[in-house]
């Protein structure tokens, strides 16, 4: 296993106002990344969404839910985007996570297979926020639907995915987490338990940026699962609002300068790219020296985990948590 050079692209949403501009920015950075030796390239969340919105003449894709009657139109536009990014992946021979796209939940995605997963397998009237992972031969090897949604995203009519599976690529076994998935440790754990080596994470973080939010997101998931993590973020001010993501590459602290866990971090907004070399052999050495998973406690988890989640009726534990309990030791 040799080191994998990975590129994470940060995009300014201002430059994504037309479908042509989205593809031009994507192509420019894929070319630059491939030229820099990257074998895996990751773009921010909603790169595809902007393509679709621009194609449909929707100025602000997040202002209100997309109407069901435009689902076919959205699927056609998303299909065009997908075709273009698959060409880029095969043209530059890279594994490409070209960002995410909002996809009608009832329309099967082109390029999706049973093996890769399908974002469009739900009832009409709803949408999925999903990312295609494209191999260097242009195949979609994984469709990953965002599994944890914010209240604002649910108001958009999006449905969460209920599956997390990594995909084997020439760049390694990759699991995709999208946006808010990073704040839920279950998601990264599920992927890590399936032997994921790289967490690839397209994000679009609303202003204001807070480093502690990033600490509790990807950085933390990387540390507690002993994997690599790449976060590619959206920036910029548009009519949709302001994004202030910070693109970064993360590894277990033992593998980084100053034992900080940060392999590379972009320290400015706007269009730019970072590269990082991910060495699976070095990661294996870290795990060999100190295997966090060796002390997982399935007996404990078996005792509680299904029941704990079942208690959180309605998707929110707040009600269960606020039930009054007798107090001891008064």
């Amino acid at each position: 296993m040799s080191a994998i050079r990975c590129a994470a692209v940060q995009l300014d949403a201002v430059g994504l106002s037309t479908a042509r501009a989205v593809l031009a920015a994507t192509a420019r950075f894929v070319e630059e990344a491939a030229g820099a030796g990257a074998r895996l390239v990751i773009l921010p969340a909603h790169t595809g969404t902007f393509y679709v919105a621009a194609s449909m003449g929707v100025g602000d894709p997040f202002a209100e839910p997309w109407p069901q009657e435009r689902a076919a139109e959205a699927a056609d536009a998303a299909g065009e985007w997908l075709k273009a990014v698959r060409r880029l992946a095969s043209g530059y021979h890279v594994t490409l996570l070209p960002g995410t796209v909002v996809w009608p939940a009832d329309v099967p995605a082109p390029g999706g297979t049973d093996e890769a997963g399908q974002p469009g397998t739900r009832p009409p009237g709803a949408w999925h926020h999903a990312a295609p992972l494209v191999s260097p031969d242009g195949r979609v090897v994984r469709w990953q639907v965002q599994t944890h949604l914010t209240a604002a995203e649910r108001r958009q009519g999006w449905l969460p995915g209920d599956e997390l599976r990594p995909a084997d690529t020439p760049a390694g076994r990759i699991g995709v987490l999208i946006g808010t998935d990073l704040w839920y440790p279950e998601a990264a754990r599920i992927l890590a338990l399936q032997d994921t080596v790289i967490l690839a994470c397209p994000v679009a973080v609303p202003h204001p940026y807070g480093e502690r939010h990033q600490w509790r997101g990807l950085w933390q998931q990387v540390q507690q699962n002993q994997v690599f993590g790449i976060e590619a973020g959206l920036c910029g001010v548009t009519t949709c609002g302001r994004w202030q993501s910070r693109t970064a590459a993360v590894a277990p602290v033992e593998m980084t300068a100053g034992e900080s866990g940060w392999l590379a971090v972009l320290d400015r907004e706007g269009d730019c790219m970072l590269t990082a070399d991910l060495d699976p052999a070095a990661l294996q050495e870290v795990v060999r020296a100190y295997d966090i998973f060796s002390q997982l406690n399935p007996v404990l988890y078996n005792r509680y985990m299904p029941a704990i989640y079942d208690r959180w009726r309605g998707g929110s534990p707040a009600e269960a948590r606020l039930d009054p309990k007798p107090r001891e030791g008064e």
Partner: protein
Amino acid sequence: MGLGARLREAAFRRWLIWRARPGPIRAALERMRLERTDNRASPQSHRVRVATVQMRLRLIGDAAEYAQMIASHARDAAALGARLIVFPEDSGTHLVGFLPGLDRLPDDVSLAQATGAIAGPGVRPAEILRFIGPAVRTAFTTTFSEVARRLGVYIASGSAMLPDESGNVLNVGYLFGPNGGLLGRQAKCHLLPIEASWGLAAGDDLRVVHTPVGALGFPICMDATYFETSRILAGLGAELILIPACDVAEGGYNPWKALRGLWPRVQESLTYGIHAAMVGRFLGMTITGQSAIVAPVELTQDGSGVLARADSWDREEIVVADLDYEALHELWRTSDVEAGFNLPLYRKYFPGAYTEYRKRHPGGRRFHPTSGGD
């Protein structure tokens, strides 16, 4: 073992228990004239002042001296208004000093060397801990129970390595109420690999104790590295998670490494958290930690997620902060994080994913070469 050896062992065991008897402990505390605090009275019942004790690990061979050392820290914390006082992991390890001769070993002797010097080569630490366990348990629980009662505060004891009814040696902590009663007991559920090599066993249960100073979970140190711990405790109703810790840091204190513990667990599961750190040099190990009282970032004015933190990572300190449970409950009601859980996803993968993982990796985790063809 011959008759003579058995008799010598039995006599030694009785001598250890005699050294740990409660009488001298109570007498020593009586001499300190500890005053019961009035910290129970609070103008705002939903606010609770809590304290964490950052404490130095050293060998103490005398139970009365140990009790006075613990009481001194607790008295200082109670004087600052704390109703709940949290001690670090291994707060009972001082009492390994009951073993004669240990205090005469050089400072930099390793645990393995110390074990060998005491019990001969090939003896695992757990065997020694099992042998002295009854004495340590008596001194440890008597001390914390008496101190809690005399000061009228809740005390989380930190932990000691003690045998259970089956003879398994666990790293276990206790919670005592202001009347000195035992409110709960918690074994460490996720060991360090080196602890496993010593022969310690992991606990397999987590409990929340509902008290007037909060619904408390009190797992131990490495338990905070695993999100499952705080998720289970949150599901059981925890408002506050206590993490006694004793971190060996040969390269010196590293805040990034420390960030892998309680702080993210508090952010994920939206509870308050208290980290109590042991410090010092002990059996050739450098122990560091920065005790802190943490909260969800939304409940801290500067957005740091830290309500109070020790100034050092190598000295004894006491840190206090006020917890506002009404604010926490309001956060539960309004948080986007709380509303975003994906129960169908969790039900699909948990707990089977752990079992499947163990089947695939019986000898430890190995990343395999990927397929896909390049």
